[in-house]
């Protein structure tokens, strides 16, 4: 158990030495009026460099990452993050540029961004886009603002409704709401799919559009996608594609060809950039031709072999983040995309789907998989029957996986599956890893019936046991408050 930085702090300890000041000293009062000066003490930690390094080295030992084991966290595409991405991204000639440098001094970086946009457009079948959104949800919000700007431009002020399947990721409704849309939840049919039938009632002049992910969060390909997209378009609406699941269909099926007008991708999923304990990510947005005018500014232009920022976009929704996106993440994604190439990306999707279906076929006999008989890159188990039979729930199974050095799947999502467990193995896992995992899942199943308490008490091999989340929320302690 690590102490907190504040608990190892010692007054007067110096951690780092700066160069000596080499311009003539100047009194603080001569620079900054007294009433603008800080009076409060800063109660920040004072530690040595060695302590700093040890602190984080030991914290790191207490964290699981995909570099350490199987991490089939559904919807998150925890694939291997190639180390070469770190090499290219840490090149100081990329990483040390200021966003407001003159354009002629960042031609290489602009080309990186331009190429990535070009390749992503081709991969998704879209026209062009922006790299400005800083994560998937941010991309969704950007997309919804583009919807809005489009309808505003057309004077269609009545279009305020966005259809979102009940199985959608929480960010979809949150982003649409944030952008001022009214959300209509569309239930899945008994196949786990959105049927044309289900959306038909809403195909009217109040419809702004629909947000879908395909394959959907059950890992199933939306079979009626073309009917849906035709219907939405005929009703004057737009289609938004949540690209979180793009890893299933690269080179196999393009959102642009499915009729989507706007989409985001998660570079930190499909394109192998590391997840960083929760970020930074990157959520590029791509659009069809008709929506180009609404993209955030600045765009990147290429003329006479010179790249430049283009600010003059009168219909643009404006800025959605401070500068141009998480450039460090963008370099990594381009590296990956270019190493993989067209065949590599297609092959990645194929193997991702193969791995998922292999797991699915092996777990099928014991665990209930309520929807579909084939999946794409992920699938969802319901532990409901086990729970009813043994009182062992999805979270218990998840915790038991931890005891087997496997990161749990996404649980209790999508909401339409009771006791949901969503597994996404990704393509970079070996058959041996999958086989080990299958064995563990079978053992857990047996234990659940034979000795349910054993599973309910998991994990036992970890440094901490289950944490009291109710107490955490009831009496929130969200910052260190001294030695109390």
């Amino acid at each position, binding site marked *: 158990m690590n102490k907190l930085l504040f608990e190892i702090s010692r007054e007067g300890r110096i*951690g780092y030495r700066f160069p000596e000041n080499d311009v003539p000293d100047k009194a603080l009062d001569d620079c900054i009026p007294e009433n603008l000066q800080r009076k409060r003490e800063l109660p920040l930690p004072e530690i040595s460099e060695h302590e700093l*390094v040890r602190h984080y080295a030991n914290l790191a030992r207490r964290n699981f*990452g995909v570099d350490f084991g199987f991490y089939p966290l559904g919807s998150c595409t925890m694939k291997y993050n190639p180390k070469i991405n770190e090499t290219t991204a840490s090149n100081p000639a990329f990483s040390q540029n200021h966003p*407001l440098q003159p354009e002629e001094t*960042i031609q290489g970086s602009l080309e990186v961004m331009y190429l990535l946009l070009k390749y992503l457009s081709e991969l998704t079948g879209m026209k062009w886009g922006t790299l400005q959104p800083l994560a998937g949800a*941010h991309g969704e*919000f950007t997309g919804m603002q583009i919807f809005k700007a489009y309808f505003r431009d057309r004077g269609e002020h009545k279009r305020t409704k966005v259809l979102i399947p009940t199985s959608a990721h929480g960010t979809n409704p949150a982003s649409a709401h944030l952008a001022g849309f009214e959300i209509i939840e569309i239930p899945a049919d008994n196949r786990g799919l959105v049927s044309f039938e289900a959306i038909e009632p809403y195909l009217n002049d109040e419809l702004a559009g629909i947000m879908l992910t395909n394959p959907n969060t059950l890992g199933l390909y939306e079979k009626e996608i073309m009917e849906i997209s035709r219907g939405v378009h005929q009703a004057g609406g737009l289609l938004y594609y949540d690209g979180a699941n793009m890893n299933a269909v690269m080179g196999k099926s393009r959102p642009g060809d499915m009729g989507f007008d706007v989409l985001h991708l998660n570079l930190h999923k499909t394109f192998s950039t590391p997840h960083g304990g929760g970020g930074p990510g990157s959520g590029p947005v791509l659009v069809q031709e008709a929506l180009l005018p609404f993209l955030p500014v600045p765009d990147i232009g290429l003329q006479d072999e010179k790249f430049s920022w283009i600010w003059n976009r009168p219909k643009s929704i404006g800025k959605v983040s401070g500068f141009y996106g998480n*450039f460090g993440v963008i370099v990594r994604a381009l590296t990956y995309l270019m190493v993989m190439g067209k065949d590599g990306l297609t092959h990645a999707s194929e193997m991702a789907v193969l791995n998922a279906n292999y797991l699915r076929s092996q777990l099928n006999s014991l665990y209930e998989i309520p929807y579909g008989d084939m999946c794409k890159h992920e699938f969802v188990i319901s532990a409901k029957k086990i729970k009813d039979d043994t009182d062992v729930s999805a979270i218990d199974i998840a915790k038991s996986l931890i005891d087997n050095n496997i990161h749990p799947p996404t649980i209790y999502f999508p909401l339409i599956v009771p006791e949901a467990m969503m597994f996404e193995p990704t393509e970079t896992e070996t058959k041996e890893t999958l086989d080990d995992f299958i064995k563990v899942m079978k053992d857990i199943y047996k234990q659940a019936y034979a000795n349910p308490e054993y599973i309910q008490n998991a994990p036992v091999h970890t440094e901490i046991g289950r944490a009291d989340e109710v107490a955490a929320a009831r009496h929130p302690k969200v910052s260190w408050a001294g030695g109390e």
Partner: protein
Amino acid sequence: MAQNRKYSYVPHTSEDIDEMLASIGVSRIEDLFADIPQDVKFTEVLGLPDGKSEYEIEKFLQNLSEKNDRKLSFLGCGMYDHIIPAAVTAAASSPAFVTSYTPYQPEISQGMLQAIFEFQTMICQLTGLDVSNASLYDGHTAAAEAVSMAFQAKKKRKTVIVSEAVHPFTLSLLRTYFNEQDIQFRSLPLKGGKTDFSQLSSLLDDTTAAVFIQTPNIFGILEDLNGISELIHQNKSFFILSSNPMNFGMTKTPSEWGADIAVGDTQPFGLPANLGGPSVGYIAAVKNLLRKMPGRIVGETQDDRGQRAFVLTLQAREQHIKRGRATSNICTNQALAALTTSAYIALVGPMGLEEVNRQSMTKAHYLKEALLALKEVKDVPGPFAYEFTLDLGNRADDFIQRMLGKGFFAGVHLGALDSSLYGKVAVAVTEKRTKEEIDRYVEAAGEILKGDQLNE
């Protein structure tokens, strides 16, 4: 034994594939995609380059990077060129942090959870406010989240008052975020390089959810916020204060000014500028706004063995629970970058922050005085920490361009961000710049500006 070029990062041997297909009960990979309707199946060849070896792509990108050109930088305007200690970068590079995701499973994520808890604490310590979160995308979106919090907490109020001295990109972004018919922006105008607070009383009314101020402002000038919080609070509005947190090493902090919500970007704490990202948006607020906070929050609790444990908490605010009614849509944030900035703060400590501030301030004042001594140069006057603004009028672009030729990123022409700021050039000087570099800047500027005068 030619290598199969498709196999990048994919471990499957052809035997593996055969065995797995057989056990699934299909015969070809294509069968796994049979559920894709024929009319949306992609049957062409992607118009992308062929895959290449890592080595070739590394060379390719190395060559691209050499098309960039770095000069001696005096750029600021939201991103600052401070010294980054090697230990900070090293501490944050551990694969266990880098290759993990959001710490949903506390039993195997105490490392990241504790690091974020420490980040939250340090943001509270710096701002003097009570609560913070696990990070937001950047300082500009943090501004939007703060305004959004204010609107949520004051459901009936639909106006926000924004100083004209905030970063133009922040302003642009706020307009993107809050473009609803019923939301109104009111501008608190400029007076010289400062916000004209004499107008505040008249702008405040019972529609005002929040007042948004930035200090140091876009000109680098430190706003005098004496009495401002009282005005705002009398009106039952929220006082949102945006700041480069590096300045807290020396200047008054949000709690001292009476702010309810503090936002900004922690990039100056150990992150390279990286053409603008990743950086980290911070947000801190007074205690009673806790349940309105956006994004992830880590809390302290106990495990079933009685040990201290950290967990994601108050998730009922978030999109995965609340969906359309969440306080924010943010999911993935900037965790690793937040960890990096915590490590910076912890390493340099309060004395280090003071040192950085003192040196940056001293050097910035040294430069400004030397430039003003050139006579040809006017400034936007006002007290500042380590960024100041020159008023070069028509010569601004030419000055920057010619300084570039002499090896300097001389400053940011604010007119490029907002045409109303035409002629104003913001110059930032950090502890990283040496006297010799500053003297060269002055010399170069002198040559350019004096030459100009002769030619005019």
